[in-house]
Structure formats: structure tokens, C-alpha cells
């Protein structure tokens, strides 16, 4: 196989990976701190996509329409996340995880239908922002500028996240919360606002990733349940609650999917779920996480 081809396949996998990282990082953070698997994360992602489309409709044809719309979408979803956390979710922290899981699933159902009600059931799409519409040639392969942009955004968010978590006071509190909730309580930190903050930030990431995906994917009902399963796989591979784990989990997932198509074309779908199961069996805390 030609190296340029392998490179192209790798870059394709890496783009997929960085999109998934944007989505999965929020899911992973919420799991790490709150020990909740948030099924609604996919719905937040979908809402981000719809809101971005809506924003573009409003702001069209201004050149910066896409960027403003993406910001609008991310902030809108973050706001929604905050409301959900304050009004409902905080009442479930002491309850069994079954109830927390089901609550997030109720959100999936409600938000899915709300999106259908507001934006219909058809397929919507958003064009790439003009600055990133073209592509550049790397090693004899055409790489879309927009994808390169995403490949830069992913690691940038990873680095920023790492910096905040490891080098700031807020990050210390978050890490403390994910290590030992009781200890944090004892330290007198306001766990409630940390949780709200985490949930809002996680929703922001979901909304942002939903907005950023619109130039290369169509917006359709059902994109929420499709993406959430993929995000789960990524988070499981990397280790639930581990930020870097999620990053590398995304990279692995993207490459397995990308090269899996070459090796066993019919079964790449199967291979990622099998990978998830195997990791849960041999290392439930993921490749980069630590046992809880």
C-alpha cells in the first residue's frame, strides 16, 4: 500500500477521532466527577448542531456567520445543561445510579422530540465557513482545511483541559472531587457549584462539537443516539473519567474504524463494540484510567 494512502487513511481516522474527542471529553468529565453516565450528552450534541444551523440561518450571509452560530449553539446548550442540572439532576445525586441513568435517558427522549418539533424531521446541512472551504495538498493527498482545523481544535482543547485540571485551583477541586467526594466535602468546598460548573462545561463541549460537526455531516433526528454509543466506546477505551484517556481513546477508536474498513470491511462496526467489551473485561477502568 502506498504511504500516501496510509497517510490519508490515518488522517481520516484522526479527524473522526478529534470529533469524538470533543464530544467524549465532556461525557468523560461528568463521569469522572459525578459518577454519572450521561446518555443525554448525545442529545446536547444534537441540539448544538440544530442551534448552529439555526444561527447560520439567522446570520446568513455574513462571513463570520458560522463562527457566531457555533458559539451561540455552544452557549445555548451550556445554558440548557445548567438549567437541567439545577432543576432536576441535583436531586438525584444521592439516588441509585439506575435513577440517574434513567433520568438522562428521559432527557434523550424529550430533547429528541423537542428537536423534531422545532426543526422537523428532514435533513439539514450547513456549509463550511468560507475561510476553511478549500483543501491543501499534503503528501500528495488532499486534506480539507476544515478537517485540519478540527484536528487542531481537538488537541488544543485537550491541552487546555489538561492545563485547567492540573495547573489551576479549580482543576484541583475538580480532581479532588473525582478522587474522593467525601474528602472534598470535608475540605469545605462547595461541591454543588463544582457539579453545576462541570455539567455546564460538559454541555458546552457537547454543544460546540455538535456545531462544529455540521459542515461535514448532515443534521438529522437520531444523530443523538448514534453518537452517544460511539462516545461511550471512546470513554470506555480511554478510561472513564480520565481526560487524556479520552483523548487517546478517541485516537484509537478513529484508527480502528479507519483501518478496520480495510482489513475486515463488513465488520468494523462489530470490531469497535468488541474492543469496548474486551477493555471492560480486562481493564474496566480503561487503558489510561485508574481503578476506582
Amino acid at each position: 500500500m502506498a504511504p500516501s494512502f496510509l497517510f490519508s487513511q490515518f488522517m481520516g481516522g484522526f479527524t473522526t477521532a478529534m470529533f469524538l474527542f470533543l464530544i467524549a471529553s465532556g461525557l468523560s468529565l461528568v463521569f469522572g466527577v459525578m459518577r454519572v453516565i450521561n446518555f443525554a450528552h448525545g442529545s446536547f450534541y444534537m441540539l448544538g448542531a440544530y442551534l448552529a444551523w439555526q444561527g447560520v440561518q439567522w446570520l446568513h450571509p455574513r462571513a463570520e456567520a458560522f463562527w457566531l452560530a457555533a458559539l451561540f449553539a455552544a452557549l445555548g446548550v451550556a445554558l440548557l445543561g445548567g438549567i437541567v442540572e439545577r432543576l432536576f439532576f441535583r436531586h438525584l445525586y444521592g439516588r441509585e445510579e439506575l435513577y440517574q441513568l434513567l433520568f438522562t435517558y428521559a432527557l434523550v427522549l424529550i430533547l429528541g422530540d423537542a428537536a423534531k418539533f422545532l426543526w422537523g424531521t428532514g435533513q439539514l446541512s450547513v456549509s463550511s465557513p468560507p475561510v476553511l472551504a478549500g483543501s491543501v495538498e499534503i503528501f500528495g493527498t488532499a486534506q480539507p482545511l476544515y478537517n485540519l482545523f478540527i484536528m487542531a481544535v481537538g488537541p488544543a482543547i485537550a491541552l487546555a483541559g489538561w492545563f485547567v485540571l492540573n495547573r489551576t485551583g479549580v482543576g484541583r477541586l475538580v480532581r479532588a472531587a473525582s478522587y474522593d467526594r467525601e474528602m472534598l466535602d470535608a475540605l469545605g468546598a462547595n461541591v454543588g457549584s463544582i457539579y453545576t460548573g462541570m455539567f455546564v462545561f460538559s454541555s458546552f463541549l457537547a454543544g460546540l462539537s455538535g456545531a462544529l460537526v455540521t459542515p461535514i455531516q448532515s443534521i438529522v433526528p437520531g444523530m443523538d443516539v448514534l453518537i452517544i454509543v460511539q462516545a461511550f466506546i471512546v470513554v470506555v477505551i480511554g478510561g472513564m473519567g480520565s481526560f487524556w484517556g479520552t483523548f487517546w481513546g478517541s485516537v484509537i477508536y478513529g484508527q480502528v474504524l479507519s483501518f478496520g474498513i480495510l482489513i475486515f470491511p463488513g465488520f468494523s462496526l462489530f470490531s469497535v463494540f468488541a474492543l469496548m467489551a474486551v477493555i471492560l473485561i480486562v481493564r474496566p477502568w480503561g487503558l489510561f484510567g485508574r481503578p476506582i
Partner: protein
Amino acid sequence: MPRGYIVALFCATGVVSMPASGAEPIKIGFPIPLSGPTAVYGEPVLKGAELAVSEINAKGGVLGRKLELLSRDSKANADEAVRLARELIIKDNVDFLAGTLTSAEAPAVSTVAKENKIVFIAPTSKSTILTDPAHIHPYIFRVSSNTDVEGLAGATLVARWKDVKTVATIAPDYAYGRDSIAAFKASLKKLRPDIQIVDEQWPKLGEPDFTAFITAQMGKKPDAVYCSLFAGDFVTFTKEATPRGYFKAIANRMVDGAEVGTTDEAQALGGDYPYGIISDSYDPVIFTGNEPPEHKKFIEDLKAFTKAKYASGWSIVGYQAIYALADGINRAGNTKSDDVAKALPGMTFDTPVGKRTFSAKSHETFAPEYWGVMVKEAAYPFAVMQNPELLPPSTETN
């Protein structure tokens, strides 16, 4: 434990009332995707059927009874379509079934029609398994073309590119895609044994991310591509493929047999359309050449009915399905499915693009389609088909 009581209560109140008088409308159940990536085709098919129903009812209906269309969103899922078809029969007591879009839905609904002995007219499903000898039954009829016809037309077009030596395929991984590629390959082998198939990609229907498929296919450096992606999948595919230079690498030598030559698809993609590819449509809508007069009227009526600026290239199949059914009922003289099922085979009916005849053997019309290069026209903000050509020239393949 009140399980049985509520059931009993429910039964006792008798939610369903049986139709009594002859003035009752003739009910046609119509499961069709109205959400998800294929809704972009499903909606206009339904509109076409609704137009036919309103025209027929305006003329007094069939056998003095009005037609009533009961449409349901099948979500392009086989299981959902089956569930809806059974519910339409059992709960709504429909007289006939029509509709479904994909070749996952139609064969599944066909089994329901067979079991309940209810005539089912599939307007769009092309997969040969719908009416092949193993699956044919007295109640299934198909208005659309089939994958053999489509594959032959596609291979004919690919064969015209004399310098093409290698071809790759990409198709959704389900009945239609598989049958379509198989038919294309079989026809191409006869027409151009020198052409090699160098790559086959099988994304799933509704695939959200085609990147890996695109790069994998580009790696094989085909001269041309035969594609069976359609509706939302083709939109997603194109948006990822164009910036990767996919169409440039094959010099736009793609033939897509899955009706991406319709105005619907062209409008969905707008300026992102990969101009220069060849595709098909049952109805090119915008004829650059000689337009049949019936067609002109049909398009005007359709535009008025849907209040849309441009008509859809998909509505015609829904329209044809209802007219075929109405003709069949008229011929049978009653609405009993058994009699209508006997009236339809061999029956010829008029459509805005010429006459169609249900084969007596396989209950289908082998309809040719219009094919042509999709080009930019100054008058339209989307791609239109240049000089539509009816292919394959000889339609009777069985």
C-alpha cells in the same frame, strides 16, 4: 394485578368499529419514511400519492367511493414498516397498501401483504428480491424499476468511457445496495470485460461519517466509480468527498443509479453538488429537450399542489402507484384484494412519462429511467440533468 381487567375493559368498550356502508372511502395504507436521512425522498413520494388521490377524488373517486390515504412514518426501518403495515391492516382496516421507500422496508412489508392477502404496490423499491421467483406472491406489485434494469443502464454508461480500465463501487450495505452492485457488475462484465472492479465499499444506510470509506476508496485509484448512495447519505458523502478531492481524482466520472439526479437531491446539495457526475431520475422535472405534454401538466399540477417553487423528481412514482391501484380497482370492479390482484398483472396504465405495464410474471414494470450528466444551469440554483436519455433502451429484461 389489574392487567386482565384493563384489557377486558378495553375490549368491551370496542375501540375499533367496523366499516359498514358502501360510501366508506377506500383506505390505502402508506408507510413511508418521513424522518431521517431518507425523508428527503419519502416526503415527495407521499406528495405525489396525495396529488393522485386528490385528482381521483375530484373526479368522483373509484367505483363511486373516495380514496383515503393513511400515511405513516416508517423511519426507513424494516421493522417499523412491518409494524405499521400490520397496524394499518389490523387497526385501521385498510383495503390496500402502497408506499415504503427503501428495499429494506418493501420486501418486509410484502410479507405482511402476502400473509394478510392485501394488495401492496411498492413505488420505489428497486431490489430484485422484492419480486424474484423466491419472493413473488399474488399481492405484490412494483411501479419502479429494478436493480437489474438500473445496473444495466449504469453499466451501459460506464462502458461508454473508453479509457476507463478500473472501476470502484460504493453502495449502502443492505438489499438495494447489494443487488444494485451485483447487477451493475454482471452487466459491465458483459459489456466491457476489460474493466476491473478494484474496490467495493459498503457503508451502512444512514452512515454518519464516510471519511474512512472515501480515503480507502481513493487509495485504490479507480478511473471511475459506480455509486448507489442516495438521499441524505449522498449529501453527507459528497460533503466529505469533495474537499478530499475524491471527485477530482476520478474526473467526476461517477455514475449513481440511485436517483441523485432528482431535483430533490440537487436542491438538498445546492452549490455543493458534484457537477459533472451522471445520475438518473424517474422524472427529471426540468426537461431541457422534448417534454411530453402530459408531463408538463403533471409538473404544473404538482407545483400547485405542493406550493413549491420547483417540483420534485420523486413525486411521480407515488403518483403512478396510486393511479395503477385505482385502475386495478376499476378493472376488478370491486375492492377485494383477491380480485384486484388478478386484475393488475399484465395491466397497462398511463403515466405522465408514458405507458407502463405490469409484467404478468414478475408484477413489475421494468420502467426505464432518465439518465444524464448533472450540470450547472444559469436559470437554476441547483444541478439539472443535461439532455435526459431514457435507459436502458430495451426495458423488458426477463
